[in-house]
């Protein structure tokens, strides 16, 4: 079982979500985050002149799924979140010990899968 943490452009969320949904991956959690990578930041306008904003708004998408699904999910996110410009984001894949469904208290790998 894996957890995928994908940092993507906020404007790409809908495209990524739809692409995952088409492949049967439904469950996800999103968070509004700020971050920077090679893109560093952007200049915004002050009253006269400008100032730099180092951290830019991004969306963090978290998905827990089986090891097999994780490869598909990463592939889909990469394709659907890409613009080719600096600032497209990063994907991290982490191992997960267990998952518990709150409603039933079921502990298993199965609950985390999307099917």
């Amino acid at each position, binding site marked *: 079982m894996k957890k995928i943490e994908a940092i993507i452009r906020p404007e790409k969320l809908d495209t990524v979500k739809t692409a995952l949904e088409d492949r049967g991956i439904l469950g996800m959690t999103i968070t509004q985050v700020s971050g920077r990578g090679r893109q560093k930041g952007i*200049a*915004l*306008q002050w*009253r*006269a*002149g400008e*100032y*730099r904003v*180092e951290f830019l708004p991004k969306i963090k998408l978290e998905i827990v799924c089986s090891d097999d699904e994780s490869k598909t999910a990463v592939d889909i996110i990469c394709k659907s979140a890409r613009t080719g410009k600096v600032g497209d984001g990063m994907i991290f894949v982490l191992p997960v010990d267990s998952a518990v469904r709150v409603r039933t208290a079921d502990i298993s790998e199965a609950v985390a899968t999307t099917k």
Partner: protein
Amino acid sequence: MSVNSGDTAWLLISTALVMLMTPALAFFYGGMVRRKNLLSTIMMSFAILALVSVLWVIYGYSISFGPDKGGIIGALDWIGLTGVGQAPSSVYATTVPHLAFMIFQAAFAIITVALWTGAVVERIKFGALMVLGTLWLTLVYCPVAHWVWGSGGWLAGLGALDFAGGGVVHVNAGISALALAMVLGPRLGFKEKETMEPNNIPYVILGAALLWFGWFGFNAGSAVTAGGLASSAFVTTNTAGATAALTWMVLGWINRRPSVLGAATGAIVGLAAITPAAGFVQPWAAIPIGFVAALLSYYVMLWRNRANKIDESLDVFACHGVGGAWGLLAAGIFATAAVNPAASGLIDGNGRQVLIQLVAIAAIAIYAFVISWVLAAILKATMGLRVKEDEELVGLDISQHGERAYGGITQ
């Protein structure tokens, strides 16, 4: 003298309009600071509204407008509004109750003290601000108001033109802001050019729009009659604010993009510049007045930002000092007897008026700068002006007021 109901109605409404400008300024400034100092910045203007209202009634009006003492200050004869009643004054606004004129002037004193708070935001101790506000009102605002508007004031005697406060309000507050910022020192992180992002630009626009609205009371109300002169000042006010907003927008656009923050700033600069000239100049003259004001202020602000030496945080000097000084000079250039029989400037062939205006600018600027500097230095050495370093880092909302602007995590 008898009371004219039309004039009285207009002056009371104008007073309410000018009163609204101070909470408007609170939002104008509040939107530009970091979110941890939003409440603190709003509170500065709001508390000054209350503080100066009371001080004005107790002694402020008397020492500003009371019987003249040597052209410098008013006497204490009207302390606690003694003798200021429902009948008109014999020297000021003789067609409205003296009380109406008094409270109209109160609104000007309030906003002038609130204006320079833009220079000290995000680091001044709230208690020190209240003391500084009291001392500054007493030793800077009241004397300068007397010089220019008081019966017997020396700048009034010289013939200086200041229709609604380009000198008394804008140069006075703008120059003082510079002195206060220099004594207080920069915010932590200023020298290192840390990002200090405005927390809410819609608040800035809201504040600027309400300031623009209130400015009709400020300038057209300064006619203290409800007739042609008020209408003329109303038109010049709107035209100058609009011209400067457009000019600033284009300046930003040439550089990068037409910024919202810039358009709001431009409007305020144009309104500040037309203030001393509003009731002396033709409507067309408001266009060059607004245009030049935006140009001067924009480049002064750009220079201050790039130099990064003085943390005059919200550019009170660049907006109000520069705008007000240009407006005073412009009044000397564009004033015409065709608008107001009381004033003739260069275009009427009276070049001497320009010199008188320059004297007024210099006198107010030097006096305000020196006294503000001294007052701030005394407070710095005694009660202290700044919050502690950790209080500044946490933000003044929590450290000074025990509150936060946006509460709750999810609801």
